[in-house]
């Protein structure tokens, strides 16, 4: 049976229900999975950070090519090392949940794709994004010619104000025309 020291208090549970898109069962399951990542003696302190390497051992994130960017985006650590507290973890699951809105999903997707964290997607970000999508090894990348053609096409389609980068509004405009996004931007424990 589970240890009582690591149980979630009722008022915290209702507060999390108010502030995230998760249901009660999902929050409790998240708490259980998160406690399993911590060592036994650390389980009682609620504001403990779990380092990124431990988070990335979870099967839902282990093979995801964007796993490190996801940890960096949701982490509130001052040292920018991608470590997550339980509340960061709940934020992550809330953004990736079934009932999250399109706006919040597109907002976080934009931040995940923004590899250099400057607020826009420029050619470097787009190139790294495409490499994540096709595979990082040498024989799975697109050749430079194809990459250039692809990035030109992407910017032509989505860069409305023609400044050479894709900002959040343009990104959300592209996302809103794709009906599959909400169902594919989902991680369920």
């Amino acid at each position: 049976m589970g240890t009582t020291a690591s149980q979630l208090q009722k008022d915290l549970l209702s507060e999390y229900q108010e502030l995230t898109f998760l249901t009660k069962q999902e929050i409790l399951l998240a708490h259980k999975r998160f406690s399993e990542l911590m060592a036994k003696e650390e389980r009682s302190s609620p504001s403990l950070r779990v380092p990124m390497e431990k988070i990335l051992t979870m099967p839902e994130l282990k093979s995801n090519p964007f796993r490190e960017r996801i940890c960096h985006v949701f982490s509130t650590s001052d040292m920018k090392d991608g470590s997550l507290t339980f509340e960061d973890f709940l934020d992550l699951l809330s953004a990736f949940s079934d009932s999250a809105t399109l706006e919040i999903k597109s907002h976080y997707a934009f931040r995940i794709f923004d590899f250099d964290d400057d607020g826009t997607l420029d050619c470097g970000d787009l190139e790294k994004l495409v490499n994540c999508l096709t595979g990082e090894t040498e024989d799975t990348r697109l050749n430079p010619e194809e990459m250039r053609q692809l990035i030109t096409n992407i910017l032509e389609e989505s860069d409305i104000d023609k400044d050479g980068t894709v900002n959040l509004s343009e990104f959300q405009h592209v996302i809103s025309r794709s009906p599959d996004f909400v169902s594919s931007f989902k991680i369920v424990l």
Partner: protein
Amino acid sequence: MDWNGSQRHGSAMGGYPSYPSPQESLRLRRRPTNVADQSSPQFNWNPDRKEDERRQDLKELPLPMALKKSIWQVQQMKIPAVSRWQSWKMQKSKTLKRFRESSGGALAYVALWRRVLQKIGGHFGGGVQSYFLFLRFLVVLNFLSFLLIASFVLVPSIVFQSHNSGNNNTVNISAGKEECTTYDPNPQGLVHFYTYFIDLLTGTGFMEYSYLFYGYYNNTEVITNDFSYNIPLAYLLTAGFYFIFCLICIVIRMGSAVRIAVKTGGKAVGGYSTLVFTGWDYGLQGDRAVRLKQNSIRYQLQVDLEEERIKLKAASLTLAQIVGLYSLRAFLNLIVLALIGGSFYGIFLATEFSQGYQGTDFVSLVVEYLPSIVITAANFLVPFLCDQIALLERHSPSTTVILALLRAVFLRMISLGVLLFTLWSQITCRTAERGTCQPCGYNHTLYPCWETRVGQEMYKLAMFDFITVIAVMILVEFPRRMVVDHCSCKLVKFVGRQEFVVPQNVLGLVYGQTVVWVGALFCPLLPVINTVKFVIIFYCKRITLFYNCRPADRTFRSTSSNFFFLLVLLFGWMLACLTLIYSVAVIHPSMSCGPFLSLTTMWRVVPNSFYSLSDTTREFLLFIGSQAFSVPLFMLSCVVLAYVAALASVYGQSVSLLRAQLKLEGRDKKFLVKQIEELSSVTKRREQNF
């Protein structure tokens, strides 16, 4: 959702580390100042907003949890001065919302096969998952239809037959001619043992005179002092309501799909950016699934880029080449039409031959199933040949897929229609001599109880479809996988493992459901048989998916196809509705069996019982049917339709206006940034001069 609030709140709330403040980015001067305005979210502190909106806002705020908590605490401290009535209302709405959330959670928990569907979606993508979702929808639809039919037709029939001591039942004996009323479904004498097996598969023998088929139901009409139940009327009205219920379910399910299809305009505009930004499925788990998805995305990108290069080259085709291409396509289409026409003729011949054959041995089993065999063979062969022909047509890949789907749909639905047309023309003596239909109004020599025969035909179609699915799985898919895994010759490796082709599987489901709809009037237990059949197919397809199939190379666009599949299902529904109307209103029901044996058409039971209603109800119904009501109703619907169409066009126009405005704003920003640069360079030069 408006994000105007002061910048001060955003940076005072613990510092959002990722984005530079507006002053910094101006100084950096590397990019235009559109960074902080849109990217860092702010919270609208306007106290006039309702509490529900504010709570929803809080969830949708893409801020870390700590910031959301502090906003919430500040919100809680601001207690607005409301009256007692308003505070009671707010409390009630809060409890209602909590109740709705918890019941939604409970409902999701009991949703059928939820975990299985999630797993399928994670490993094989949205396209394959949409097939299984469609299958689940059909299972639930069939089960609810069975409950409808059981409660209004089956259970009363069983109850009234067991209470057949005769106190208040009136069973009308049909006053027809002797030759029309003889019907003997139970052949006398010894029968061989294997006939039971044959009877199970064809619905004859011991299964014919049972609750399974129309012929067993009587036209009992129970009239007691405070309770009256008219079985024929119930039978007919239940069939009608069954069809309307299915239509409503399909239309509701289509509603969301239509909205999405209209919004995206149907075309894949912005294909590259959509693929790159939305192409990844975050639910995938495991290295193998991820690698396969990466391969599929890379393949799709490379093919699209290649197509674009080819298109640039092909834009320079000469006139002679274009003419040659189009004449080739016309010729190939003629071949396709000839193939389809040939298969229709084959079905016609097979149905005629099988209806006239009498016999009880194993050969007769094959002959009974001949129409089903021919339809299934045609539906395997002709699409395969059309695919080979389509390779020569040299359309773009998306056009090829749509053409193949259209041809397959056309073939399946119309072949079923040909079977039904042949059947009905035999029943109404269109192909036989005139004399056989004179005494009874239908072909009584061949069909003493024609409704049961039609029900048996539909039962055989459904059974054969089921057997085919199981047989293909056992005899083709499992051996194929074993051969691919254990044999290492080049040809086998080239062919590879089975791919789960979604469109053909969905068309199979639509065909099965159409057969059930056509047969439901004549075989009332067909929906429950279909429910069991679809449940077994679900588990079998799931097994074959996980053991034998590999994920598709080209991912299947699930949402636009969802709408297409529901459209095809609706088309099948219309075909079934047509047969229902024709059977109910035109053909003379059998005089030897069934609940309608004393009437000239099945529909007559409604006007006959109409006169037993009370006066006010009768007048009300007459009024609704009259012109004084229906013409104004029609005009009102036209007005509403025109209003909705005008609204839709206005929204479309405002969308394009907003896009143009976005472009203008971008240009304004660039102009302002240039001005700032010029001014700051001027001031810098002046400083240097001093």
